[in-house]
């Protein structure tokens, strides 16, 4: 019986996925997938603008244009996984990973490029990203409905504990000082509490300033803390600090290289997806785990000296992790990374509440997204290999063109939210604070999570306290709450394990 219903669930999932293709294959959505994939690739390889900044800057535009939420999510997801492809280009040719998730790719990718095999490394990165990204979409379609069934029984207490777990996991996985990560998260909560209280309508910490009555928009916070702080960082760097770009060579992989890498791609996809589902873990940890696992499993190997499987493992894992990270985002309403946190904020602004009811109330958003990922991954491999020369040229854009462009997009992005100069000033203030925090090794991801989840966690916490008549025991009563506390405790131990894995990966 159980077996039959599980099989029925699988059939349902694939039927829904097929329906998702009906949503994803409209002309508008195909164009947005293409745009997202292209923008993501470009953004991923350029220093200074990661997917977070791109989504933050684009958000006011799509909001003003009244693009449907499903299409917006398709565009943002395209940027997110497209940036994983883009990352590998700068990692392999320049030894500069666009984000930390691509840091492992540099180990073998750049080594290959220095041996005149940069084209092969790029081709393997595209193939592995495609393999990992595509296969993980099946996992998404399989597991999301199961988790949604479980999450439907969540009440305010369970949601509060779930968000606490997300905070703890994200803080632990950031691998620096836990105290600094907690301070960062609570600074985010402090920012989120500014404005009118959603429960009582009282205005808090607005100091009579009309601009603060609606609270501080999360986009302003994201642009300030990520994009402007990055600009301030880059003003302190010299251009000649970069490694020389390696020449682009033949992209053709031999049959043996492909055959040898298939098992690596499959294993890394599975581990990457599982890591991606965990709030806070994300692509960086997924790629380190996959690389370390393959390095141990495949003996003898030339990992670190230019082994093509050393490119396949992290690329498959980080693409798979980026797909996996949509499960906590869409099914639980809890983002696992700064990029998905920004997406959550965006969806809420569009009146879509991610959570277990999303699959019932707005199935077109979830299944349309899943189907669009197939299409996006296909576009990425079809476009990226022939266009890799063009992307390599974009990488050589001088900073005096790129940085003014980023500055302009930050300012325009902040201004267009409310048409207010006040938001531009806030962006600058947050940029300076973000710069000082990054210099002192404070992680910014917990801060963004605090800003995005601040209102939700406060509302759920206060509701739970009303239900329990002021007793905090409600947060420890249900089996779900207890399981989440145990998971939160276990995630506190994660940094020790991850440091060991990193040690294996690096040497």
């Amino acid at each position, binding site marked *: 019986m159980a077996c039959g219903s599980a099989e029925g669930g699988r059939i349902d999932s694939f039927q829904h996925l097929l329906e998702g293709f009906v949503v994803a294959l409209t002309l508008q959505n195909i164009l947005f997938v293409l745009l997202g994939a292209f923008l993501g690739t470009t953004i991923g390889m350029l220093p200074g603008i990661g997917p977070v900044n791109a989504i933050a800057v684009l958000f*006011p*535009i799509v909001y*003003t*244009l009244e693009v449907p939420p499903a299409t917006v999510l398709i565009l943002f997801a395209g940027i997110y996984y497209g940036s994983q492809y883009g990352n590998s280009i700068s990692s392999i040719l320049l030894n500069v990973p666009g984000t930390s998730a691509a840091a492992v790719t540099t180990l073998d990718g750049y080594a290959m490029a220095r041996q005149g095999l940069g084209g092969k490394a790029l081709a393997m990165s595209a193939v592995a990203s495609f393999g990992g990204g595509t296969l993980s979409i099946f996992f998404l379609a399989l597991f999301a409905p199961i988790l949604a069934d479980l999450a439907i029984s969540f009440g305010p207490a369970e949601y509060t504990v779930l968000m606490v777990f997300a905070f703890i996991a994200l803080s632990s996985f950031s691998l620096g*000082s836990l*105290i600094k990560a*907690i*301070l960062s998260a*609570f*600074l985010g*909560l*402090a920012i989120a*509490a500014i404005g009118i*209280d959603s*429960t*009582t*309508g*009282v*205005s*808090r*910490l*607005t*100091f009579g300033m009309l601009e603060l009555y609606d609270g501080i928009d999360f986009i302003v916070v994201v642009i300030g803390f990520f994009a402007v702080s990055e600009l*301030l960082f*880059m*003003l*302190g760097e010299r*251009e000649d600090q970069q490694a020389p770009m390696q020449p682009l060579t033949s992209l053709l992989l031999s049959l043996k290289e492909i055959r040898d890498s298939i098992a690596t791609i499959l294993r890394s996809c599975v581990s990457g997806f599982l890591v991606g589902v965990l709030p806070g873990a994300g692509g960086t940890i997924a790629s380190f785990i996959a690389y370390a696992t393959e390095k141990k499993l495949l003996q003898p190997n030339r990992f670190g000296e230019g082994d093509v499987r050393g490119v396949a493992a992290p690329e498959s894992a980080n693409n798979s992790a980026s797909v996996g990270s949509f499960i906590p985002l869409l099914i639980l309403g809890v983002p696992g990374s700064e990029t998905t946190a920004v997406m959550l904020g965006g969806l809420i602004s569009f009146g879509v509440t991610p959570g277990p009811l999303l699959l019932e109330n707005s199935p077109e958003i979830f299944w349309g997204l899943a189907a669009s990922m197939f299409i996006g991954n296909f576009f990425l491999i079809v476009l990226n290999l022939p266009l890799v020369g063009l992307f390599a040229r974009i990488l050589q854009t*001088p*900073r*005096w*063109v*790129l*940085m*003014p462009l980023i*500055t*302009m997009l930050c*300012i*325009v992005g902040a*201004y*267009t939210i409310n*048409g207010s*100069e*006040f938001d*531009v*000033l806030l962006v*600058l203030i947050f940029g*300076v604070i973000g710069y*000082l925090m990054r*210099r*002192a*090794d*404070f992680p910014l991801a917990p801060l963004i999570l605090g800003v995005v989840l601040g209102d939700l966690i*406060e509302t759920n*916490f*206060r509701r739970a*306290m*009303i239900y329990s*008549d*002021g007793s905090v025991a409600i947060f420890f009563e249900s089996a779900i709450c207890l399981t989440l506390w145990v998971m939160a405790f276990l995630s506190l131990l994660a940094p020790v394990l991850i440091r060991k894995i990193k040690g294996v990966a690096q040497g």
Partner: protein
Amino acid sequence: MTTPGTGTYDRRYALVALIFALAYGFGGSQFEVGFYNGIIGPHHWIYGVAGVLALMSVWLLLQPTAFVPEEESWEAWRKRIPLCLAIILYTQGLPYVGFLITMTALMVLVSMLFGANWKQATVCAVVLSGLCLLLFDGLLGISLGRGLWFR
């Protein structure tokens, strides 16, 4: 355990965070609340956030990490400060002279801060600002600020 002097950097930040936490908590006591506040009122949440911030700041003050950032040259700040001032000036000038002039001026400065000569910076600034205005104001219909003097 950290050696003497190694935690100085963290302690400075902890002190700033502590002052912020106290000010935030004080700010939470300054607004008027309604007749119904639930069991946890709007100010209690602020106290809670301020309390944890203060607690963690004290912890960091007493147990700083050994983290020391890379040394920075004064040269970098000589670029950062003009950028910050220019953005402030942009916000003040925008309501009067509009997007095109203020953004072009800002872009010239940013471009020069990143190594362009004045000719390159001017071309870059005019092209970027013009394209941006065309895209947002012209094609998308999103106003970027026309300015009182040019309305």
